[in-house]
């Protein structure tokens, strides 16, 4: 289960990266879709939140490879009067929060409005207990 969960998180992370390349607001949209698709799965929100943070962490690492992100963090932190490390935390917490909340809300809406998935379909989305 752990390996499958990790794999799923990885796939969702890649999807969120692709969404973020479009625009930042595409990430909660993607998370909502994921939440709706996994409406029968209790771990969907956690996966979405984790993938949200991971996706921006990967993109941040790409920025760091290309230039001085430490200087950006220090500058923005100075402007906002917070520590540079808080800028990193904020940058990772923001997509995580968006993804978790979007997934929870979408899951609830989906469960309320859409029929439950067939066991077979659910089995493909959820690892066996």
């Amino acid at each position, binding site marked *: 289960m752990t390996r499958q969960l990790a794999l799923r998180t990885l796939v969702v992370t890649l999807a969120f990266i692709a969404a973020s390349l479009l*625009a*930042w607001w595409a990430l909660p949209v993607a998370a909502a879709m994921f939440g709706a698709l996994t409406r029968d799965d209790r771990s969907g929100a956690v996966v979405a939140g984790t993938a949200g943070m991971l996706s921006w962490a990967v993109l941040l690492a790409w920025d*760091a490879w290309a230039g*001085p992100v430490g200087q950006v963090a220090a*500058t923005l932190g100075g402007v906002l009067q917070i520590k540079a490390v808080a800028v990193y935390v904020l940058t990772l917490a*923001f997509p995580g929060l968006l993804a978790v909340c979007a997934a929870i809300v979408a899951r609830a809406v989906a469960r309320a409005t859409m029929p439950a998935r067939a*066991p077979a379909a659910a089995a493909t989305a959820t690892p066996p207990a």
Partner: protein
Amino acid sequence: MAAARRTAPATVVLAALVLAGTMWVGGRSVAGAPPLGGLLDPVNGVWALARRALPPARAEAAIPHLSAPVDVRVDDRGVPHIFASSIADAARAMGYVHARDRLFQLEIQTRAVAGTLSEMVGDRALPLDREAREQGLADAATRGFDRLPPDAPARVLATAYADGVNAYIDAMTPADLPFEFRLLDARPQRWEPKYTAYLFARMGLTLAYTDGELRRAAMEALVGHDATDALFPRNSPIQEPIQPNGQHAPRFDWQVIPPPKPGDGATARTALAEIERRATLASALDGVVDLGAGRRALDPAAPLGAALARPTDDAAVGSNNWVVAPKRTAAGHALLAGDPHLSLTLPSIWYEAHLVVPDSLDVYGVTIPGAPIPPIGFNRNVAWTETNTGADVADYFVETVDDPAHPRQYKLDGAWKPLRQRVEVIRGRGGHVIETDTVLETHRGPMLRSGGQWVSRRWTVTDGYDVMKPFLGAARSASVRELWAATDSFLAPAQNFATADRGGHIAIRSTGRFPIRPKDADRGDELRDGSRSSSDWQAWWTTAEYPQAYDPPQGYVASANQQPKDPRVDPRYLGWDWPSPWRAMRINEMLRADSAVTPDRMRRMQTDPLSAETPLFLPRFIAAGEAGTAQDASLATAVSVLKEWDGRYTSDNTGAVLYEAALDELTTRTWDELVDTSAAGRNRRVATPEAEVTLELMQQPDSPWWDDRSTPDVHERRDDILRASLAAAFTRVVARLGVPGPAWAWGRTRHALVRHLLGIPALSRANVLVSGGGPGAVTPSAGDGNHGASWRMVVELGDEVRAWGIYPGGQSGNPASPRYADRLGKWSAGTLDSLHFPRRAQDLAPANTSSRLSLRGAP
């Protein structure tokens, strides 16, 4: 597998609320903070600045109307060398590169002139916009630009430059947006050619705006007409003019200062209120707009520096330039030093660039983002640099209007003339109208309400002219004579052009439009009668009449904003209240003493730690203090500190602090008559004479000006005030810094403060140590540290031109870039970079090349 449990409704509601809130702060500006989503987005948000910290090693771009490819090589100092096949193409490339490196600067300085800051930052900029509209600089610049013929250099180059700026803006991705736009949640506007004219209008506001008439009115109301004339003389009491007068030392023209005569305090207060209003706006315009961070917050040392500043410290700023003929240089080549002083900002007002067009142009210098041609620089044959002339080129006329409450006409020579009405609509963020104002203008210029009367202003800066023609001509000139001919068309703001060429010629000329006033009212420092046209300016000084010197026999010539012409040579009115001549005196003293000047000596002169003022005041403090040492032990200590002081303003020097504090006390105590002590006056200082006037008063030890008004029973004389000033200064410095010792180091009190254009502390650099300089030194340092040497340059006009330079900042406007403030350390230490000056693109060695940009025409 069992179906998953339903999520608790409370959790869903909470998640929905958090999601909504996060989306809200992600997409909307909340409490002044920019939208977090766009800001923190690692793809297109602020983090993208890291990817844009330096230009890519190789890049290509397209610019409309480019006639041939342009090769831009950026050297290891971040300086672009632009190799183009036409001057217009070079201007296009310059626009592109300026936009790439300084886009926010282009935007903010344009909006400051146009009075459209509110559209970008909101209502908080309304007072600035209102003032800009009232000044009418954008209106005048637009009208001047529209009058230009199609082939005028200003129109051709500004249009080409706009092509380049807009090519960059159009090709920008969200990731390219500069940091400040993100903070303000704004986008750059497209660049219009007329904005180049705005830039020069703004320079006029910075360098040639005077409110002398109002200040005089305030002074006269307090101390009378004759005393005002003496305290703010039209001729400096110390003559060390720019145009050599044949003397080999400064001449002291001491006059008797008449005693003060009480006047009308109400008039003083009215005039002072107007001055203060304008001063506040002028300083706000300097930083363009402040997002809430004051100068004090920026610089922890500022309170200390300000506390030890003189009341006249705002005048302790200025520029220097000098040239030395081959006969007085070690290598036998002419040398030039440029040292313009301005507000220190990040990014800097200057941007270094080198433009090459085969057989047409090969100029290196400092450009101002907004214009393609450097106003200061050198080519293969000539070098030039400017200081501000400070001539009086603005007069105020008291107008007679038909209805003081709602004027529509003004009277001229007995007839009513209609007032021009300029309707100004100021918009806020989103484009909604937040204020509509009507500015009235006579044939002279805009009218303003001052002291209960309508006053119009005539100002050369708003005349409008081809601002590019003289600078393009200078850039293409092959000799000093050619440069003079090219700059004949330079009108405003008047500048002292120091020039030298490879033929060994040196020269200086105060160039600009200087008005000739009617004979019966030839002073520009008094309000004029607007009801008659004979009050208007009659003509202009001819270029032959300009203060100037070409190959003077002394072999050198210098300017430091001092009075340009000795009144014994030409008594006509050119201005008044000239800055103190200490810098000019010290520079000339050094040049007289050295007949084998080297480029490095020129560099060291730019940060010389001595002041010509000190030897004139210091002995008087010591002599007066010694007379009281028997009764006062602390005074004895103060005297010993001053006696041991070597007169140097270096960061570790421990004597300068006491001397400056003593001079501050002396100035404050001597000129107490210029403080409005009435209840309504709120103890405001109306004005403070320059230090040389205080020195002039020293010649009258019993003058009533020395009397301290707070001690009516005692009549103080000069030495009483000198002694009391020294004692008070000592007490003050001890209270702040402790007993005399290392804590009194000059460097603790004076720092440079390089402010970001928005005044944001995190983007500014405070507490920058300066290698040397004090209020009267060649590098004057004002109390807040925000003025100083904005560009230091030394050029040797040898077989091959060699040049060195530095400015306090960096080429990039991106705060994440290593080139944002990379030059501050060297500037602070007083060192200069050697400047690359390749003839061809391939002459710039690969080791000295950091990136390349290939520009081609866009379909």
